[in-house]
Structures are given as C-alpha cells and as structure tokens.
C-alpha cells in the first residue's frame, strides 16, 4: 500500500466523471461531472506534491479551484439563460451547433 493508491482512485473518479459527462443529459449534472473530473485531477496533484516534497502541486490545486469557481459562475449563468430561452435543462436540446 503506497501513495499510488491515490492515483488509482483519482483515475477512477476521473473516468466516472467522464462517464457522467457522456451519459447524463441534465445540464447541471453534466456540469457536476466536469467538476468531478477537475477534483480527480486535484487529488492527483495533491498526491504528486506529497511524493515530490514540493508545494507546486498544492499551488496548482488552488489555482484549479479558482478557475473551476470562475467556470461554475459563468457556466451556471449560461445554464440559466439557456433554460430561460428553451424551458429545458437537457443538453440535447441545445443542439444548434450543427449545420
């Protein structure tokens, strides 16, 4: 049992997050899947920081959190405005991105 276990856990969580993004259709849940992937990366970063005895990993985790927060703010605002326009929270209803 060593620190690699955390990496495996992070990989697993990342994969589940990706699955959430791929399979769920509720925009909010999809968004949470993205957050889950980010968090999985954070866990790996924290573990790496501990492995290498350097604080860089932790700093990056903080930065990722800030960026994620910014993303959440804008993303949720977009969800709100899409919902207002279409009365739907399904990602499949926002499918104008095609020819």
């Amino acid at each position, binding site marked *: *049992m*060593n*620190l*690699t*276990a*955390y990496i*495996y*856990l992070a*990989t*697993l*969580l*990342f*994969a*589940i*997050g*990706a*699955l*959430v993004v*791929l*399979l*769920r*259709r*509720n925009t*909010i*849940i999809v*968004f*949470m*899947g993205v*957050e*889950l992937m980010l*968090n999985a990366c*954070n*866990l790996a970063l*924290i573990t790496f920081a*501990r*492995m*290498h*005895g*350097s*604080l860089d990993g*932790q*700093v990056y985790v*903080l*930065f990722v*959190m*800030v960026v*994620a*927060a*910014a*993303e*959440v*703010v*804008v993303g*949720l*605002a977009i969800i*709100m*405005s899409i919902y207002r326009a279409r009365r*739907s*929270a*399904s990602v499949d209803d926002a499918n104008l991105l095609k020819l």
Partner: protein
Amino acid sequence: MSGGEALLFWVLGPTCVLGALGLLFARKAVHAAMAMALVMVGLGIFYIAQYAEFVGIIQIFVYSGAVMMLFLFVIMTVGTESSISPIETISGQRAWGWILVLLFGGVAMYGVARVTFPEPVGLGGAQAEGTVTALAREIFSRQVISFEVLGSLLVIAVMGAMVLAHRERLVPRATQRVLAADRVRRNTFVAGKPAPGVYARHNASDVPALLPDGTPADVSVPRTLVARGQTVPVPYRGVDPAGTPPDAEAADTAPPSTRRGDQA
C-alpha cells in the same frame, strides 16, 4: 502511508467512488448534487490526510460549501421543473460511452501501473514553517503573477455571469389592475384563480382545491408542484387515492413523463 491513513483510504475511497456513481445514477438532480458534495468532502479529507491542510479546508469550505450550494440554488430554480426522458436519444451514445470510458480507465490505470514512482519525499521539508506559511510564500512570491491573473479572471467571470443573468425588461411589468382587466376581457378566471386547499381538510399550498364536482383543480397549486407530481392526492368522492390517482384527469395538461419519480 501509515496504517491509520490506509484505513482512512479504504473507508473514504469507496465512499467517494460510491458518491461519484451516485452522480452517475441519481434520477434527481438534487440527489446527484448531494452525492457530489459527499465526494468533495471526502476529497477534502484526503487532502488533509496528505498534509495539504490548507487546500483541504478550502476544498470543504469553498467547494462543498459555496460551489455546491450554487449548484443547489440553480437546481432549485431550474432543475425541478425540467423533465428529461430516460430514453437515450443519440443512438450508440450509451454503448460507446461505456466502451470508451472503460478503455480509457484501463489504459490510464495500466499507464499508472507501469510508472515507477520515486520514494515519496514527504512535505516535512517543504512545509517546515507550517502549511499556510509555506503555501503563502509560494503564492505571493513565486506565483504572484499567476495569482493576480487568476484574480482578474474571477472578476471577469463575475461580470460575465451578471451580464448573462441580467434580463432587460422590455415591457413594463403588468400591474394587478391590468391583469384583472385582461382576465375580464378574456372572460377567464374573472373571479381569480381558486386558492389551494379550499374545500379540503388541508390548508397547504400543495393541496389542490376541489372543483364543485369534486375534482381537484390543478390551477390552484403552483405549477412546479404539478409538474413534479408533488401535489397531495385528495380523495375523490370517497375513492381511495392510492387506487386511482386523483390527478389522472389532469394528465392531458401535463405530459406523463413529468410525473413523480420520472425525474432523470
């Protein structure tokens, strides 16, 4: 990894995975959000266990506290009323999703397994003067420019959100007088919509009023409750509500998928 930490990992790790799976399988957005919060708290504890106390606390406070609350808030205004059919609309999406994710997980884990990690150094040296102090030194000296840039990113994000959420009112808000005149002109609800709970044993907003013939009037309860199917069934002429849902007659006003429990 000490014995205590191993124990923590083996308890908390599966919990996190379960939470993540909850996110994947939950039928209601609220449940998904709660599962997500669980994962985040678990991760925060992991951070603390890995000597990243400051980041861990931030994770729990900011992420599970603030960000997830923001999610819940949006679910409150958006998610409940929306209805999403559980039937997959894009052909092959589900199968391909699973295949690719399993492939990805396999490849990634295989990759991790092949890597020979060095002997962990530990953070004792790097954090000799304390977690927060050491991290502060990093952020405010070496990474100060990135930090400033992130600050401006946040400000811009907030402004963007405000622009997106702002709705310009194009016509003046209809006053009660205008609405009343309108109802009279259209000859609908001239006396106003019925209040909930009238002619009933309850006096709550989720209890529909009964029409003179004894049928429940859906217009008397908030639309959201009707859509969610969360109105209280009232007995119809003495018939047991469990047998025939009292709002079956109102089904034509709302699609069947909006019924209770259909929330994806």
